[in-house]
């Protein structure tokens, strides 16, 4: 799913990362990103973290709106 559900990195090890989104946890690959750390927010797709997110706060869309529109 591409859906915009961001996930928080709970744990990292050689094997990958455990991420959590609204209480749902899964082990995913951390191999597509540099320097992931616990506490980071990521977008997950097909079992891998594909992007680090500046913030989990989608409220920033409001700011963005003021900026872009």
């Amino acid at each position, binding site marked *: *799913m591409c859906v*915009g559900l961001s996930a928080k990195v709970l744990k990292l090890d050689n094997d990958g990362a455990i991420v959590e989104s609204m209480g749902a946890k899964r082990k995913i690959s951390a191999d597509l990103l540099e320097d992931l750390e616990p506490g980071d927010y990521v977008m997950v*797709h097909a079992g891998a973290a594909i*992007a680090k997110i500046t*913030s989990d706060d989608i409220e920033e*869309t409001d700011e963005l709106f*003021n900026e872009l529109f």
Partner: protein
Amino acid sequence: MLNEAIEYLKSYDGPQINIMEVCGTHTHEIFRKGIRKILSPKIKLISGPGCPVCVTPVSFIDEARYLAEQGVTICTFGDLVRVPGSDGSLADSRAAGGKIKVCYSPMDAMEYAKEHTDEEVVFLSVGFETTTPSDVLSVKTAMDEGVSNFSLLTANKTMPNAYLVLKDSMDCYLYPGHVHAIIGTGICEELAANGVSGVVAGFTDKELVLAIAVAVKNAAKRKGYVDGVYSEDLAKENENKGFFVNCYPRVVKAEGSPKAVKLVDEFMEPSDEIWRGIGLLEKSGMKLKEKYKAYDARVKYNIPAFTAQGNKGCRCGDVLQGKILPSDCPLFGKACNPDHPVGACMVSDEGACSAFYMYN
């Protein structure tokens, strides 16, 4: 803010603006949230070829069904299970005794192969730039861990050539956020420089509404309209000037994910691919390099050539290119419906025809 944008989209009365989504999840979320329902009649959304299932050719399903019949375990994303091949779907293969396993990720399929050494396991590798890195990761890990009963049946696609082919179908692309999270926005800037406009969009209701509003505003401006007032000068000035706005900056960075791009380039090379409904597009996909052929199911199992075409009556191609609405297809809702999909666009929840059917 959201309300302001919604109000803008509802009451927009400038020149006709056509926006094309090229991401299945965009199509799906736009329908699910009812975003089309709030748009002024002057704004038209076209569902382009963004659903990897919809653009997967009939022959790919035939290849997968062939493998299942040979006793190979097929691992796949759920979307592909009901896609019709030339003589049935993978659900039919399963009902006939084939082993079809729905997986969350390519890596899960590889793990399954590792744990079931008595089975031959093939993962159906479909998807765009967002998904391909995960497919490659599963091959890399299989190599590292000596898993030899795992391979990919690839149908991976890449976006840039499709952007070029379809550039005259609309005024502005709604670029798929996660594709550009991987490949960055260089290509978008380049397209803009060549007169092709677009905005990168996220996936929440707010993000989509924002991106569409930004798209409409800029597209109107390009046509010489600002706040409903036409200026011929402005129109002239912008005639060949595309625009690009990243409306999803919390996720999409200009540089994308270099690590992911490098990984893909190490294992894969561009290939000419058939897009269902559109036809063969040069260098529009990725396949495993020759040196990784042990993980290429086509080579490994010497799959015969399947050349079947989709149903002639299906107009997926025109739908994907924005030439017609799904409801303009004579089969839509009659011979073709989600229970008995004729074309791939009717299969996945992300498919343009399916979404159109379900939400109307």
